């Protein structure tokens, strides 16, 4: 077994017991990446020299007793939307293809102080807009469980890299499901945090009222260890409330779930969903009952409008955020000798943005334009209020909500590409969580007959990450779905 298959907590223990060094651990990840990248395309940049240098530093620091905690010397990957000083960051878009950030994102800074070893930057849909990584300008990633299938997206590169042991952990972003859906498709664990819990300063924006940053990992305990470093108020991100940061690992040693009230939203068990997915999630719920949880059916009545809300609010905010990519401050200069600035913008943006970005910019601009704003954007914001109230009411009655992460298992690459609405339906079980800004932990809970991973999500109140991580950790102590590895 390769060292690369370890979790953070296992690797951290091994480093301190001097069973292996950070350099050895990092080399193991780099070797996996070298062997598998021709098949998977998880990474868009591998920073091998930098990784080995940082690993060596970590070994020296640990030897001297300068111990920065569990993440010290652990090789990891960042979705290519996290600005890394001096290391190319592209959002997998032609319009940023040569962008080398002059500063680090706040989370990158925090992880650096914690002894981060960056293996590389991972693939994503362009500007995180997609559910499969197929809109990346570097080409699609492939699912380690079946390389003819998608990894999901947009954090598909991060999910594939973690699932295939090309790194120990990764960070991704989740705006409408972009951590949870690829985690489900790749059979790993992913945490979508409460909106505002983790600073987004220096992370390339997609839809600002929905974007969140979170860990993509091998188990719930690893997610907690990362949260201990990255959570908290940042004066450079005014959307981070001043809410105390707890020790996220504190409750993880619980033995059972006695007294926990679990709600099953009937709107997430619908006709047309994959029977094997439903069966696996229902089996997982039986498991939670055996661990002492009380389970009851609940209703989130506005669920069916979630996608409609999302596909107005998200493109509207995308169109506003994309306005800064004009070929002036960064990005390739427009070619073809434009006559004036207006024509310069047209040409720079035409050449720089891919198909899905153009589509979202167009939808968003339309929804925000004079005469249509009330009918679309304002209407969506009002229905958003009703979706938020659904969660508030439900989570006053139960402690957590459990639901499938996706209605089916990973689809074949190319299957949804021709029809944007079909691709948008991929997010049907994930978007409402972003709309309400609540946290959700995606964990593996079974496999289909084709040996494709199935996932469920554990949803909590705002800032209830400690509780959903506890539920995930107790579940994982009693199951081994998260320990299954793709035979690649």
């Amino acid at each position, binding site marked *: 077994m390769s060292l690369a298959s370890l979790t953070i907590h296992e690797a951290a223990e091994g480093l301190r017991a001097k069973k292996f060094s950070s350099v050895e651990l990092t080399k193991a990840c780099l070797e996996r990446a070298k062997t598998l990248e021709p098949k998977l395309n998880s990474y868009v940049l591998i920073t091998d020299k930098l990784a080995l240098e940082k690993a060596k530093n970590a070994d020296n620091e640990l030897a001297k007793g300068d111990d920065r905690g569990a993440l010290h010397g652990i090789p990891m990957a960042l979705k290519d939307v996290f600005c890394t000083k001096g290391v190319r960051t592209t959002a997998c878009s032609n319009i940023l293809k040569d*962008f*080398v950030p*002059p*500063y680090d994102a706040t989370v990158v800074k925090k992880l650096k102080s914690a002894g981060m070893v960056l293996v590389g930057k991972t693939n994503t849909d362009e500007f995180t807009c997609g559910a499969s990584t197929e809109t990346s300008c570097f080409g699609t990633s492939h699912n380690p469980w079946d390389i003819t299938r998608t990894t999901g997206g947009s954090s598909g590169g991060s999910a594939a890299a973690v699932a295939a042991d090309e790194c120990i952990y990764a960070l991704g972003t989740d705006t409408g499901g972009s951590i949870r859906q690829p985690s489900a498709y790749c059979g790993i664990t992913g945490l979508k945090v409460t*909106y*505002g819990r983790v600073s987004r300063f220096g992370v390339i924006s997609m839809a600002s*009222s929905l974007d969140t940053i979170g860990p993509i990992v091998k188990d719930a305990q690893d997610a907690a260890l990362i949260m201990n470093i990255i959570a908290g108020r940042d*004066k450079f991100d*005014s*959307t981070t*409330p001043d809410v105390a940061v707890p020790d996220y690992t504190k409750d993880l040693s619980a033995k059972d779930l006695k007294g926990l009230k679990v709600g099953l939203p009937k709107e997430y068990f619908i006709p047309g969903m994959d029977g094997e997915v439903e069966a696996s999630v229902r089996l997982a719920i039986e498991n939670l009952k055996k661990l002492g949880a009380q389970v009851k059916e609940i209703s989130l009545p506005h669920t*069916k*409008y979630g*996608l*409609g809300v999302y*596909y*107005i609010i998200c493109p509207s905010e995308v*169109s506003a955020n994309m306005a800064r990519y004009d*070929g*002036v*401050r*960064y990005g*390739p*200069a427009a070619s073809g000798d434009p*006559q*004036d*600035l*207006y024509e*310069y*913008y*047209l*040409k720079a*943006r*035409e*050449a720089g*943005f891919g198909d899905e970005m*153009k*589509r979202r*910019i*167009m*939808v968003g*601009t*339309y929804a925000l*334009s004079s005469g249509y704003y009330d009918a*679309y954007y*304002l*209407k*969506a*914001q*009002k*229905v*958003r*209020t*009703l979706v*938020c109230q659904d969660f508030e009411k439900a989570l006053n009655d139960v402690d957590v909500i459990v639901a499938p992460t996706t209605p089916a298992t990973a689809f074949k690459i190319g299957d949804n590409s021709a029809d*944007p*609405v079909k691709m*948008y339906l991929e997010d049907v079980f994930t978007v409402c969580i972003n709309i*309400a*800004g609540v946290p959700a932990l995606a964990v593996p809970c079974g496999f289909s007959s084709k040996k494709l991973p199935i996932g469920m999500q554990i949803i909590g109140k705002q800032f209830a990450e400690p509780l959903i991580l506890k539920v995930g950790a107790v579940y994982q102590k009693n199951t081994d779905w998260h320990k299954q590895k793709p035979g690649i």
Partner: protein
Amino acid sequence: MKLTKDQVKNVARLARLGLTEAEIEKFQTQLSGILDYVEQLNEVNTDGVSPTAQVTGLVNILREDEILSEKIADPAELLKCTNLPVEKNQIKVKNVF
């Protein structure tokens, strides 16, 4: 609702987005499809419901107006990001008119 070609062109102009003729035709169909989909929101009665712009509950977060060039990145580093000519710490663009 089917968008006209002129509507698509007008939106592209507002978005400062160059599109080919083929893209205009494609988006005419696809945007109409997306707009048809989101029109289901009209089924929901939102009388008296206030809109949600964000979910943190935070209002007016203020901070000191400090110069952060030393802490973040200095102007020279930021200007390295452009591919256009730089003069006196300013990026030189095409004429506006």
